[in-house]
């Protein structure tokens, strides 16, 4: 196990490095960048930047400077926000997004797993068709459609939930559901498929022949195999939740990193963009590693591969 972790960590470092480098050079070389002298910057910011980055130095030196700064944990000053550094901005907004993502994941797992497992236990019945059709709807109604619609019905018309903000618990319901809905749908389909596949295996028949109750059969024998596709999906799901947060935070006016990222993309706040990309990439790589580790823990056959 430890070997796998080490191997993956070692693999991740060059990947991360590649991402940062590509993004860095993309930004520096793109037309209309801040380092394009035609663009006018707020003089305060201009000062800070010039103080921080030696813009007259050759590109490679700027690069090594930036990387050096990174290694000491410094993402640099924001290009748009005169008073804050990227570190500060991220520190403020990231926890919010983390919370949103966590709730959304919980929603997705809870609803998805339950629906999928029940559907698998009674294939081709209404307990199968109804959740699966709802799941299809969840996949086909994108979160930027679902969000405004939920807002409209429950926030404005019925007034059950507030329209924006992220203070009270009640604020958090609609956004979490909006973000989690699509993943609940995918998880439902994946767990149904996984369970059906496991239940068709011979060893389930052996377990039945041993006189096990259906409950024990499902929980102890079938579940582990059935959940495997869901765990494998966690990696891409995280990536999706991240990008989904851009929309959801925008629609519900939540002060999270996603909204900030989109704004900084538009505002061409380069350091902010770079910082966010690095953070996101790291997060996803870590979560993929966790997902893979979980897979090997569940399926002993993968352990020595």
């Amino acid at each position, binding site marked *: 196990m430890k070997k796998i972790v080490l191997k993956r960590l070692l693999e991740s470092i060059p990947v991360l490095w590649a991402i940062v480098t590509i993004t860095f050079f993309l930004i520096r070389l793109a037309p209309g960048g801040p380092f394009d002298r035609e663009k006018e910057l707020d003089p305060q910011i201009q000062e800070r930047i010039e103080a921080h980055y030696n813009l007259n130095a050759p590109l490679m030196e700027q690069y090594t400077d930036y990387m050096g700064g990174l290694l000491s944990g410094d993402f640099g000053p924001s290009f748009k926000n005169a008073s804050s550094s990227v570190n500060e901005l991220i520190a403020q907004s990231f926890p919010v997004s983390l919370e949103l993502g966590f709730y959304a994941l919980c929603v997705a797992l809870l609803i998805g797993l339950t629906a999928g497992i029940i559907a698998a236990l009674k294939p081709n019945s209404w307990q199968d068709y109804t959740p699966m059709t709802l799941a299809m709807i969840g996949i086909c109604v994108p979160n930027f459609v679902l969000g405004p619609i939920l807002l409209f019905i429950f926030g404005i018309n019925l007034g059950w939930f507030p329209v924006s903000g992220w203070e009270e618990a009640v604020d958090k319901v609609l956004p979490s559901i909006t973000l989690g809905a699509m993943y609940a749908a995918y998880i439902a389909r994946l767990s149904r498929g996984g369970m059906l596949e496991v239940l068709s*295996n*011979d*060893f389930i*028949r*052996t*377990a*039945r*022949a*041993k*006189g*096990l*109750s259906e409950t*024990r059969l499902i929980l*102890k*024998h079938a579940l*582990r*195999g059935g959940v495997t596709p869901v765990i494998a999906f966690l990696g891409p799901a995280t990536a999706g939740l991240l990008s989904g947060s851009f929309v959801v935070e925008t629609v519900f006016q939540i002060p999270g990193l996603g909204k900030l990222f989109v704004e900084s993309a538009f505002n061409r706040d380069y350091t902010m963009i770079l910082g966010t990309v690095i953070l996101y990439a790291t997060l996803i790589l870590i979560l993929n590693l966790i997902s893979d580790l979980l897979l090997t823990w*569940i*399926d*002993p*056959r993968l352990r020595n591969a």
Partner: protein
Amino acid sequence: MMSLLTVDNLATHFHTRAGIVRAVDGVSYSLEKGQTLGIVGESGSGKSVSCYSLLGLIPMPPGRIESGSAYFDGVDLLNASKDELRKIRGQRISMIFQDPMTALNPYMTIGAQLMEPLLLHRGLSKEAAAKRSIDMLEAVGIQDAEQRMNAHPHQFSGGMRQRVVIAMALITEPEILIADEPTTALDVTIQAQILELIKSLQEKNGMAVILITHDLGVIAGICDSVAVMYAGRLVEQATASSLFHSPRHPYTHALMKSLPSMNTDGKELYSIPGMPPDLTKPIEGCSFSARCEHAIEACRDDIHLHTIMLNHATACIRAQKGEL
């Protein structure tokens, strides 16, 4: 004295898109304590399905037990409640399946799977169950049993897995063991070891065994009585010695003829001409008549199993009349 198990007119049909497959079409037999009954036949004869039906292991759509009863200790297995069946399965009647590679749960340790029936059915403590499991592993010939308890199935070879499956079935000392081709994956020495183990349990506890196989050699080795199945029906039933001494059904005859050991003159191996019948179509009269070299007009009439000698019954009307 009442038999341990009395199966009467069991019929199991599968309702598929291609038609109703009459996999088992009216099979009756009885099993005594300590007796070993061999059920022999080619693939598709219904021998496995008939036994799976006893424990309710047939997938119920598309399968359906159309008729029959199977009395075990006063309970009709075919009409028992789910709870009753569950208490019997694994504890009083155990089953060994054909394919050892897929019969074990790849996600659980061998030990966990072995201890499960003990913890559930016998209420043993974990330590007692573990000890018993280790003993059982040793009895089936697995070395280093204690370490092996924590291993997973994929770490074992096919032969070892089959031995674990057998251990798992025998661990609760059931009254009936149903074994579906239990020794195909094993080499001859292990085969002998396993059959010895089963025999010793029979002597100790009076365990009855139903052995499903296509291998007449195995039958000859350990079975007391034999039932020959063809196309879902019983065509001959006798004690093993009586069957081998004087088979009284053309199909049994043909089976014996096709044994490699019977064809020692170097000529082509005998194989039964023709194909097994389509089980979706109702069969008129004797199911074997289409391929039988002794068939006559009367073979198309209703056929029943009749006792023609002591402990020997056949469904062939010509044999019943003494013509064969």
